């Protein structure tokens, strides 16, 4: 695992350092302009998730995977390193971005809200969901997987709008609030700690599912 991290660091160090300095500034400023607690995690999580895929896209561009996979490394180990590296990068971006959001003068949300458990948990949830959906698509389609993801989002949006006009907004809201409501009920019944544990467990399960699917696709990939 360490050797794969080391390879990625040598391969991307200038890019990572450049992005690591500039990108959180951008997210921090943009996030500070958002005043809605529901919108902030949805938008920012996507910006955090993009970072590892830009990195992996560079390796795709150099066609260097053929070379890497000829080295003594299994596909499982290679993919596990990618998942871990992605999470490290996304969490670092999340931490830096949130910190900047809170300290930018005139920020629309107070630091207590930005770092509140609800915001942190929902940001983590969106990061996990976006990443968990994107990774199998990236493994299967390479950089075009990002486009597939965006197209799927657009189509889903259109379908929801159609659905909304035919069955009303109530059902869609119910569907969207299914998980938050379940978490709220757990919190009401057992307290905040079990609720947080339930959310994190759900995210871990989802990520594991994404890893398993990605690995199955990766094992089928030919070079």
């Amino acid at each position, binding site marked *: 695992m360490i050797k794969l991290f080391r390879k990625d660091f040598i391969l991307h160090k200038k890019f990572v350092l450049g992005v690591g300095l500039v990108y959180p500034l951008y997210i921090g400023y943009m996030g500070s302009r958002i005043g809605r607690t529901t919108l902030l995690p949805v938008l920012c999580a996507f910006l955090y998730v993009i970072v590892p895929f830009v990195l992996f896209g560079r390796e795709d561009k*150099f066609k*260097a995977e*053929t*070379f890497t996979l000829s080295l*003594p490394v299994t596909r499982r180990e290679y993919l596990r390193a990618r998942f871990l590296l992605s999470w490290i990068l996304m969490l670092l971006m999340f931490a830096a971005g949130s910190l900047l959001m809170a300290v930018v003068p005139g920020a629309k949300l107070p630091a207590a809200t930005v770092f509140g458990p609800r915001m942190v948990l929902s940001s983590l949830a969106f990061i996990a969901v976006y990443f968990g959906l994107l990774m199998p698509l990236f493994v299967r389609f390479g950089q075009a997987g990002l486009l597939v993801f965006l197209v799927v989002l657009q189509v889903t949006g259109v379908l929801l709008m159609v659905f909304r006009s035919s069955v009303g907004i109530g059902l869609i809201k119910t569907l969207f609030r299914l998980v938050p409501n379940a978490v709220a009920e757990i919190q009401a019944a057992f307290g905040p700690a079990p609720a947080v544990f339930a959310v994190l467990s759900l995210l871990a399960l989802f990520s594991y599912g994404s890893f398993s699917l990605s690995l199955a696709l990766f094992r*089928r990939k030919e*070079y």
Partner: protein
Amino acid sequence: MDCALEIKDLSKSYSPSGRLTRPAPDSAGSGGGFHLNEVSFSLPRGYIMGLIGPNGAGKTTIIKLILNLIRRDGGEIRVLGLDNIAGEMEIKSRLGFVHDTPFFYEHLTLADVRKTVAPFYRDWDDACFRRLAEEFELPLGKRFKTLSRGMKMKFALAAALSHKAELLILDEPTSGLDPVFRRELLRKLSAFIQDEGKSVLFSTHITSDLERIADFITFIRGGRIVFSSPRDRILGAWVVVKGGPELLAAENRPLFKGIRQSACGVHALTAEADEARRRFGREAIVETATLEDIMFFMSKGNGHA
């Protein structure tokens, strides 16, 4: 026999839309697809095997299958006594490779590429790498993308030879190399197998290289093995018969593996040297066939009906 590589009934198919191979007209393609058909051969430890065949015959596919870069449809591959999938890590750490297109991280310097590669091998010998880099005149401070194909190949070779590999798998390593370095490489490979138990699988179009160093030759055409035998046996058995049209008499045709007719006469290839000398010794010229002759006559359009 102790084998460095054993391939048994290996098969692999691509659909016509398969993006991995573009079979040449003389390839395994049928209806535009590609089929590697129950390929079997083995390379004993301590020897060099040359893998030859026309473009699209399946040489690179076999090498990619050995390295588990593509999935086999059937058959078995054992490398250094281990299944190439179950023992992937162990095998790859004891194996050196050079791909036909040396893809590395193009924007890195050679020194940086070395830093990324070395930790993957438990037996990486940095002193050996530096010695080879010096010998091959590799500019370690230069970016990979600025190098010629020949220099990139040299770097790939230096990396492959620097971790005490027991088996070298080289896909067209001499293409793009100047004749001086080609000879040097062949000398290196001969020296490499002097160390007991080390072996080389070497795919190439430059058959003269193999005539110099290979102990075994495997000829693949259209996804099928035509022969896999010791070089001396092949060069002793295969001859080209040069004569007039009388060579094409019906009773002679079954003897020939390939025929070429021109205004100058008839040239025909056979794997039965003794029989050819007995039959045509007086009326035709019987010459030992080179590997290039064999490839040429056995290619589509030159074989007899």
